[in-house]
C-alpha cells in the first residue's frame, strides 16, 4: 500500500474455509448456522452433520447485512448457493434478523451444542467469551443446556474490552496473548474492573515506563479474573471448554485456567477424523456449528421440512 493508513489494532482478520474432502452434492442435508453476534458474525455450513464450510466476519451496523456477508463469505470458494440450503438457523444477538434462516435459537443453546461437537461429550462447562458478553454454561453430555450465568451489562471480560485495550496499547489484538508471556515476572493484574478506568490505569503504567508486555500480562490477568466470577457462581465441572474470540487469546486462557485450577482441552477437534485431517479449528464458530447441528437433527427426525429451492 502506498498511502499511510490508520492502523486499527482491534481489527482482527476475517476468514473463510471450505472443506475439500466433502462433495456437498452427494450429501442428503445441507444445514446452516448463522451466528450474528454483537461484534462478529459467522456462517457455518454442514453437510449431514459434517463441517463443510465456514466464515468468520465482523458484524456491521445492520444484522441482515451482516448475516448475508457471513453466508456469502462462507460460500466464496464453493459452488453452493443459498438455494441449496435445506435448513438455516439464526443465532446470536441478531438471530431474529437473519433473512435466510427458517428459525432462531439462542446462542447459549447453540454454543453448548457446538462446544459438545468441537470438544467432545465430556464437556460439562462451557465459557463463551463473546464480543459484548460472557456466559458460563453448564451442559450435559449431549450439549443440552442445564443452566447458565451471564454478564451482558459490562464490557469488562468481553472481547470488546480487549479490542479497546489493543487500540490503546497499539498492539494487534491477536498478538496480545503471546506477548503477555514474554515477561520476566508475572505483574499484578490491572486493578480496575471497569474498562474505562482500566484504560486510565494502563495509560499511567505506560507513562511510568512499565514494559508493554508486562501491561499486556496485567490486562490479560484482569480479564481472566473478571470472568472467574461467573464460573465460580456456576461452579466448574470438568471438562471445561472455552468458546468465542477470547478463547484464542492464550494470555487470558492460561491465566483463567490457573485461577479455576482446571485445564481446558487443546484447541482442536474432538473427532479424531477431523483432527487427523487437520481441519482448521476456530473457537468463534461454536455457535454456528451448534445452530447447523440443531437444523440437521430436526430434518433427520422429521421435525422440520427442508426449505431447499435447488
Amino acid at each position: 500500500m502506498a498511502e499511510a493508513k490508520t492502523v486499527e489494532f482491534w481489527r482482527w482478520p476475517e476468514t473463510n474455509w471450505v472443506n475439500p474432502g466433502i462433495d456437498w452434492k452427494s450429501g442428503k442435508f445441507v444445514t446452516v448456522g448463522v451466528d450474528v453476534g454483537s461484534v462478529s458474525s459467522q456462517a457455518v455450513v454442514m453437510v449431514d452433520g459434517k463441517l463443510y464450510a465456514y466464515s468468520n466476519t465482523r458484524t456491521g451496523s445492520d444484522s441482515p447485512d451482516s448475516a448475508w456477508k457471513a453466508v456469502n463469505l462462507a460460500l466464496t470458494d464453493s459452488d453452493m448457493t443459498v438455494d441449496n440450503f435445506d435448513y438455516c438457523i439464526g443465532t446470536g444477538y441478531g438471530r431474529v434478523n437473519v433473512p435466510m434462516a427458517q428459525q432462531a435459537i439462542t446462542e447459549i443453546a447453540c454454543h453448548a451444542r457446538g462446544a459438545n461437537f468441537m470438544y467432545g461429550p465430556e464437556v460439562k462447562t462451557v465459557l463463551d467469551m463473546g464480543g459484548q458478553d460472557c456466559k458460563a454454561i453448564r451442559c450435559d453430555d449431549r450439549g443440552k443446556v442445564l443452566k447458565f450465568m451471564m454478564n451482558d451489562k459490562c464490557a469488562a471480560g468481553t472481547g470488546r474490552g480487549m479490542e479497546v485495550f489493543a487500540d490503546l496499547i497499539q498492539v494487534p489484538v491477536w498478538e496480545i496473548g503471546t506477548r503477555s508471556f514474554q515477561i520476566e515476572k508475572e505483574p499484578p493484574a490491572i486493578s480496575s474492573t471497569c474498562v474505562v478506568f482500566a484504560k486510565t490505569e494502563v495509560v499511567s503504567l505506560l507513562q511510568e515506563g512499565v514494559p508493554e508486555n508486562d501491561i499486556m500480562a496485567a490486562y490479560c490477568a484482569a480479564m481472566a479474573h473478571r470472568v472467574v466470577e461467573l464460573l465460580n457462581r456456576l461452579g466448574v465441572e470438568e471438562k471445561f471448554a472455552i468458546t468465542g474470540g477470547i478463547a484464542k487469546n492464550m494470555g487470558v486462557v492460561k491465566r483463567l485456567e490457573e485461577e479455576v485450577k482446571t485445564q481446558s482441552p487443546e484447541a482442536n477437534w474432538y473427532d479424531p477424523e477431523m483432527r487427523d485431517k487437520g481441519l482448521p479449528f476456530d473457537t468463534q464458530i461454536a455457535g454456528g456449528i451448534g445452530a447447523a447441528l440443531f437444523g440437521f437433527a430436526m430434518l433427520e427426525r422429521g421435525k422440520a421440512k427442508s426449505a431447499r429451492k435447488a
Partner: protein
Amino acid sequence: MTVAGIDLGGRNVHVVILKDDKVVAKAAGATGIQKAEAAGKFYDEALQQAGLKRGDVEAVVATGSSGPRVTFANGYIPDAAADARGVNRLAPSARTIIDVGGEEGRAIKINAEGRVQDFAVNEKCAAGTGTFVDTMARALEMPVEEMAKISLQSTTSIPMNAQCAVFGESEVVSLIHQKIKKLDIARAVHDAIAGRVASVTRIVGLEKDIAMIGGVAMNAGFVASLNRELGMDVIVPDDPDYVGALGAAVAASQGVLGEEVKAKVVEKETIEEGK
C-alpha cells in the same frame, strides 16, 4: 486564622484557602499523572492569588481519592466528610448530598451539623460518573458543555439500553446512524447517568433538601435529568466542584485533621442467572 483545603481527585485538583472563615482564594486544574506535584502547584497558585506564603497557613487538610498523597497536608479526611462540611456551609438545609465527580459517584446523608450519617459510593464502574458523560460527548463529537446545552432542548425521551460506558459509546454511534436527533441522544445520555446516580442515592434515602455537587453538577442537562428522575429539584451551590476542597478547609479551621466514615460500596450486579 488561615487554613487550606485540597481536594485531590482522580482527574482534577481543587484548592480553597480560607482566611478568618472567608474564601480568599481558589485554584483548580487537571492532576495529570504526577498527582502529588499537581496538588502542590495549584496550592501555590491559590496562595499567590491571596498574597500568602505556605508558612502563613496554619493547617492544610486534604481530601479526595488521592488526598492521602498530598505530602504537605497536616491531615486528611475522606470525600464524604469534606462534602458534608462544604455543603453544610453553602446549603445548610441540605440533608442529602449527591456528589458526582470524574471517576466516582457518591450519595451522603448528613445531619444539621454537617456530619456524615450514612453514605454509598460507586467507584468501580464508569457508568454514573463524569467519565460516562465525557465518553458520550466524544461519541457525539461535541464538547460536554454543548451536549448539556442541547439536551435541555429535547422533549423526547429515548431509553439507552447500555449501562456500560464502553457499550454506551457504540449505542450512541448507532443512534446517530439511525438519524436520531443529537439533542435527544444528549438527553438520553443524561437520563442514563441520572438513573444510575439516583439508584446509588436511594441507598441512603432521599431526605430533603438534596444538594448536588461535584464537577457533573455544572452540567445543567444532567441536573434536569436528575430532577426528573428524583421527582424533586436538587440544590446546586455555586462552584459545585469546589465543595470538597471547601469542606476540607472548614475541617482544618475546626481543627479536624482526620475522620473516619464507613461507606456502603456499590458494585453493580452484572451477573444474571438463566436456565
